[in-house]
């Protein structure tokens, strides 16, 4: 699978390791900067109105008030308010949203094409995305309209005239709506999983005719033996499996669309029938041990990267075949405990041919294992590159000694893995002027197969996190904006959160075609992104305006949560376990936004007049 931003282990991420400065420090710095700027700005504004002494007093009182509120928050009151929010949400027919979800699932068949190369991925990402959009939308509407509605109906009067602290009102709302959405999310999750499993379930027909040898075509090609078509695909049954079926009554089909079936032959009254089992291997949650990748260039010297074969996307780095160039992964934590039956190596590499070569022959490569301490090497095998598929290679506990077939076997953990559980895996391409494209996540050791539904649930945690953040933003904005405006502001925060990367590229002027105003001119003049703008007054003004807007854009892009990063659909859809580290990182990130947003909400609500 493609992982463009790999995270280090949790504590390294949090507290710094290597070039990574540590998320906590960045967070503290950002909060500090915002605090300083916010205080300065309010001080200036208030000084202009009331003079410096009063201004300082007001700011101090506001902050002290918030602090005091936070300290005196009563769980019972928060609970009461949260419960009220839940009741309100139910009153305001969140069920409609839920029905919508059921409807989407019912009619998902319209939108989804089961004939795709990887239906499991398609279905999983569909349900997760559908749930996520629906829940986010719900969170958005619930949170943005609630407080304004209370203010509008003046029901808030009876609340704030009780010993309720503004912070409790904000917190209660946030928690209440989050709870509602959580409940919905759980139900949707269960339904979604059932939907995916149910929809993917199918079997194929298989008759004796299907298994009978086929007549070759004019050109001598023998068509393969295949099962009947279901869900727009069929599986090949290879001749060795047909033989096995005849001998043992058991066989398996080839993998198609990411799954295979077991075949059982049942002979009754002299007639043999073939039955196919349910699809196997479709939903996965591979738990990988990932390594760090380094390269060797064609001269055999260590290099940071391979070469670029001219792709716009720099994800894969290429090594040249027939030269010493190689990609070397170093894995740690390779222990007998984790791999009692040998190490399973999985890889997904890209191939780039500088000439066509032999069209029907894949490009050959080699896998070499090395002990990083003793530098003892062992050629595991030469392989044929398979693209866009997970290619599995087993490293047994005892390896044949290729140099001396009669000699003693090589002990994997004794000789190839270092004493502290480190192992190097080297991938090389063996054909001259052909290339392999590698990236750090391309090769990993498969520690075990996790439970798919657990992973699915973990994927939902990410949605949950997004939902909580949207709720917090919604409540925060609604503390001082009216309903529709709060909705827009929240929607803005949300959309901004999904496009943080784009906002950053705008803010840092890395976006092709310039900023907002320049783009506007380009659209008007129908100029493409790279064309030079005419040097005139209008374009100068536009470029100037873009320069000015970059500053607020920079702040916004630094302040908004990157909602897309918080999404782990891809892991679930591609069948990889969401690691505890990743989950912890996401949760911490979420908390890092949740608390400041909540505090802002407290402050705003405290500073506003409840009545009009």
């Amino acid at each position, binding site marked *: 699978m493609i992982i463009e931003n790999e995270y280090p282990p949790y504590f390294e991420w949090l507290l710094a390791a290597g070039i990574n400065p540590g998320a906590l420090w960045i967070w503290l710095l950002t909060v500090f900067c915002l605090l300083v700027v916010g205080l300065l700005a309010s001080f200036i504004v208030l000084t202009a109105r009331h003079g410096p002494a009063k201004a300082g007093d007001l700011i101090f009182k506001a902050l002290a008030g918030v602090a005091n509120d936070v300290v005196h928050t009563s769980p*019972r009151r928060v609970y009461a308010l949260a419960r009220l929010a839940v*009741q*309100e949400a139910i009153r305001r027919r969140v069920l409609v949203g839920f029905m919508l979800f059921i409807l989407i699932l019912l009619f998902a068949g319209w939108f989804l094409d089961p004939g795709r190369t990887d239906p499991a991925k398609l279905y999983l990402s569909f349900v997760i995305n559908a749930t996520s959009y629906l829940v986010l939308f719900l969170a958005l509407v619930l949170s943005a309209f609630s407080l304004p509605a209370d203010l509008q109906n003046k*029901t808030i009067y009876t609340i704030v005239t009780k010993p309720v602290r503004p912070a409790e009102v904000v917190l209660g709302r946030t928690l209440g709506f989050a709870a509602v959405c959580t409940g919905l999310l759980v139900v949707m999750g269960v339904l979604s999983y059932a939907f995916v499993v149910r929809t993917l379930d199918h079997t194929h027909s298989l008759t004796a005719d299907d298994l009978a040898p086929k007549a070759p075509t004019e050109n001598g090609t023998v068509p393969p033996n295949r099962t009947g078509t279901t869900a727009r695909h069929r599986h090949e049954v290879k001749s060795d499996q047909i033989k096995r079926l005849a001998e043992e009554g058991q066989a398996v089909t080839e993998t198609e669309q990411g799954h295979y079936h077991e075949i059982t032959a049942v002979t009754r009254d002299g007639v043999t029938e073939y039955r196919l089992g349910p699809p196997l291997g479709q939903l996965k949650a591979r738990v990988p041990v990932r390594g760090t990748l380094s390269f060797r260039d064609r001269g055999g010297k260590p290099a940071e990267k391979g070469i670029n074969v001219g792709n716009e996307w720099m994800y894969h780095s290429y090594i040249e075949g027939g030269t010493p160039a190689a990609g070397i992964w170093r894995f740690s934590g390779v222990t007998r405990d984790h791999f009692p039956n040998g190490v399973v190596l999985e890889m997904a590499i890209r191939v780039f041919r500088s000439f066509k070569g032999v069209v029907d022959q894949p490009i050959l490569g080699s896998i070499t294992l090395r002990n990083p301490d003793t530098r003892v090497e062992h050629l595991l095998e030469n392989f044929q590159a398979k693209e866009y598929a997970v290619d599995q290679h087993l490293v047994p506990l005892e390896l044949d000694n290729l140099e001396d077939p009669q000699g003693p076997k090589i002990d994997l953990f004794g000789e190839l893995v270092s004493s502290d559980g480190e192992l190097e895996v080297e991938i090389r391409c063996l054909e001259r002027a052909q290339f392999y494209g590698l990236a750090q996540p391309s090769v990993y050791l498969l520690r075990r197969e996790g439970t798919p539904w657990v992973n699915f649930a973990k994927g939902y945690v990410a949605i949950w996190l997004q939902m909580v953040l949207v709720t917090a933003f919604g409540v925060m904005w609604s503390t001082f904006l009216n309903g529709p405006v709060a909705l827009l502001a929240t929607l803005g925060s949300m959309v901004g959160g999904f496009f943080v990367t784009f906002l950053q590229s705008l803010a840092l002027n890395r976006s092709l075609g310039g900023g907002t105003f320049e783009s506007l001119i380009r659209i008007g003049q129908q100029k493409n992104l790279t064309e030079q703008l005419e040097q005139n007054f209008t374009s100068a003004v536009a470029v100037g305006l873009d320069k000015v807007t970059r500053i607020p854009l920079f702040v916004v892009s630094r302040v908004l949560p990157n909602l897309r990063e918080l999404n782990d659909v891809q892991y679930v859809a591609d069948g990889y376990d969401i690691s505890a580290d990743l989950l912890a990182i996401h949760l911490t990130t979420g908390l890092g936004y949740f608390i400041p947003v909540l505090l802002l909400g407290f402050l705003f609500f405290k500073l506003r007049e409840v*009545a009009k």
Partner: protein
Amino acid sequence: MMQSQAVALEAPPGAAQPTGTDVIIETRNLSKIYRDFWGRQKVRALKALDLEVRRGEIFGLLGPNGSGKTTTIKLLLGLLFPTSGQALVFGKDASDVTKNERIGYLPEESYLYRFLNAEETLDFYGRLFDMPPEVRRQRTADLIHLVKLDWAKRRQLKEYSKGMTRRIGLAQALINDPELIVLDEPTTGLDPIGCREMKDLILELRDRGKTVLMCSHLLADVQDVCDRIAILHQGELKELGRVDSLLKIRDVTEIRASGLSDAAKEEIKSVIARHSGQLVSMDNPTSTLEELFLSIVQDSEARPGRRARVEQ
């Protein structure tokens, strides 16, 4: 039957006098200016109000619509922030939420959550006072009984009539057994019987030693129950004082009687004439508070800026 003064107060059992001198509510130079979105001054809703409400009295804020009485209440409750001046409740600033522990507030209309039923409503507000469950249950039951809603306690508030809503609103205001009860237009929308009951209840509360601050534009309410009133007009305090003394200012005597013969009437006339008075009317009388009120309004419009003669 003849009365020397026109106040139709049936003196309640118990003292009409304030029971103490300690001050529950105090406003000092309290002003409120409403501003529009751009910060421009829109309305001067309240101009330098100085008030004191003492423990155990029923204090009425009286004024026509837009006179600033609701603004005063909102300022006292911390729903609005004063533009200048100070509002103190129990000696604490109005923005301090802890004061709310001892306050019960019945807003102008009962702004309650219509999807809750009476029990849930009271339970919810009880929680907001951080009451333990058993206390909550007890208070809820007591109050529902007090406002006579036992028969409808499981019904959602959206099914309640206006009077019932008012009553449950009052119940929620009393959930914490408050020392100070703030009532905003307590009798609006109530039928005559409801009105009477509400007034009785207010008096009963005063008798239990509560302090009541109410505002109303209905003179009868104020006249019936208040010990002291303040009359506001256009954000300014026009009159402040005990209801009886305020109304005593007018040297008008109204005579109401029944079963008099023409001769008797003549006789009364002659008595008046003897005391060098004039018979004004012997018809249905108008409320004198209303007259006072109207004269203040006229006076205020003729000479804006005249402040109240504060009588203690």
